């Protein structure tokens, strides 16, 4: 094992971190397990691919989160808000249906083929770090993800909206009684969660190839990350995402067969040992 493999783990962990924080926020607020999160990530990757091909990669990193935030707002208005008094289970399964539809729609637009995207100019080579030559683009992913994660935590902890989100995640009814506009908070959270999923997709496009099953592949891992981190806890999900990314990549070097079981084993161990997840019910 060398530094490059550890960095690979951190790069994978960075993507998991960005993806799972959005999922954890939506779960914390609406109590809904968003099975469409993997689909949002995939849609983000496809839109990012098209924007990068026709316009510019850096523009994609701005446009994709905006486009996905719009989709998130749509989800909130069409599904989450009208169905907020239904059981969380039913709403979760509605998102499962949405994921199936999104996957087919993507195939109808972009086709079934695997697409690949080159990293942007200036990021296509390698950089010497810790004595190894490492792809610059992956270092870029790590940097962007860490900045995003830090910004999100600071935002949740030190702004008024962040305070409202934490309050509503703790107890949505009480927060509403205390005068927090819960619908507005939910709109922000779902929009932001979708935007983060889109950002993860756009970042992943030049790193992992773009294909219609990429959402499903990540969805289960991300769901596990959120449960392991403590359902609804953004900080817990980030830590668990990074940890799982590193552990899985490092174990792959040692034995690929064992590494595929790592997330599942982590899930079972954590749920038996700490059923509420590593972070419990703290939002940030």
């Amino acid at each position, binding site marked *: 094992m060398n530094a490059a493999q550890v960095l690979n783990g951190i790069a994978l962990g960075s993507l998991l971190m960005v993806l799972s924080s959005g999922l954890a926020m939506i779960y914390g607020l609406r109590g809904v397990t968003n099975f469409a999160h993997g689909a949002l990530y995939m849609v983000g990757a496809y839109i990012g691919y098209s924007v990068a091909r026709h316009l510019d990669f850096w523009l994609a990193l701005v446009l994709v989160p905006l486009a996905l935030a719009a989709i998130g707002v749509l989800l909130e208005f069409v599904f989450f808000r009208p169905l907020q008094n239904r059981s969380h289970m039913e709403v979760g399964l509605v998102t499962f249906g949405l994921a199936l539809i999104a*996957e087919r729609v993507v195939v109808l637009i972009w086709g079934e083929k695997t697409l690949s995207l080159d990293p942007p100019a200036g990021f296509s080579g390698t950089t010497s770090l810790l004595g190894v030559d490492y792809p610059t683009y992956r270092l870029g992913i790590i940097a962007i993800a860490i900045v995003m994660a830090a910004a999100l935590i600071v935002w949740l902890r030190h702004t008024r909206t962040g305070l409202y989100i934490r309050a509503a995640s703790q107890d949505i009814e009480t927060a509403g009684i205390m005068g927090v506009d819960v619908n507005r908070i939910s709109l922000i959270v779902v929009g932001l969660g979708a935007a983060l999923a889109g950002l993860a997709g756009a970042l992943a496009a030049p790193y992992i190839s773009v294909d219609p099953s990429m959402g499903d592949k990540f969805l289960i891992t991300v769901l596990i990350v959120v449960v392991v981190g403590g359902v609804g806890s953004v900080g817990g999900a980030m830590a668990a995402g990074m940890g799982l990314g590193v552990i899985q990549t490092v174990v792959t070097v040692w034995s690929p067969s064992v590494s*595929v079981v790592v997330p599942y084993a982590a899930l079972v161990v954590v749920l038996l040992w700490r059923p509420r997840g590593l972070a419990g019910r703290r939002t940030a």
Partner: protein
Amino acid sequence: MTVTTAGGVTAAEAVPETRQRSRRGLVIGLGAAVVALAAGLALPYVADTYTMGLAADAALLGLPALGIGFLARHLGLISLGHTAFFGSAAYGFGIAVTQFGWGPMPSVMFGVLAGTAIALLMGVLVVRASGMGFLMLTLALSQALYQLCVQTSFRPLTGAYDGLVIGLGSDTSFLGLSPADLQDPGLFWPVVWVPLAVGLVLVWLVGRSRFGTTLEGIRENEERMRFSGYNTFAPRLAAFVLSGFLASLGGALFALNAAYVSPDVLGFARAGDSLIAAMVGGLGTLVGPLVGTALYVWGEARLNSSANLHLYTGIALIVVLVFLPGGITGTLQRLWKRVKR
């Protein structure tokens, strides 16, 4: 096919779902089951091979759906992991034939046993969870099995992504059917219809029994049941294993019929499809999951060329969840009650 099996389906649906454990209800129910069983057995004489193929597929996938419906109805637990039992049983059958060189009958038994053993193991880990936790745990554990199954290190056993071709010796026979007969849907039909009908009656009887009532108590309020002096873990585990057993039966017979197993039987798509089919049919009624599965198999055959099946299943799932709670059979039941009043 929908026309021909509708006779069997409606006959079973006539079973009154009352909570009174009256002797009369029992006699009517068992009578209806015998009629449905006989009507089903007569099916190959009136239906063509294509229809019989669909009917056999629906019945094979109906067994796990029956298990999913049982858990949902009596414990309120929604499982996305029944592929694990279905798939383990299918692979168990395949491995018994290819590795141990066993005949079809002991291999089917081995497959069912393997699937049920997986259900027992998984049940110990998951039945304490409820709601979304249960769904995610069953999904995660079944996907772990999928991941293991496609690993190159398991290639000698499972064939990894290539799947497993199960060549039964031409001199072997299963209940008097040669390996070639097993692939003929008309001849294979009784092999799956009888277990399905028996399974249906079994689930119905269990639901009416004292055990079924205990399960419903646990579903309504697990804590209160525990305070009332009931052991709530063992009944949940038993229900989970029964449900897994039904799925295993389906899986072993599926492999027997197809003579081939691919990792798809353990995959995420299959897990989602079987749950959606059961929900569209209606998890609240005994036959709902079977109706949904039959519809799904029919739809799959109709849409085979366009590959957009998931577009429609996704839409169907959302429509049912948002507008028709209780699925097709649940909605029909509500309408029927309104008409009667």
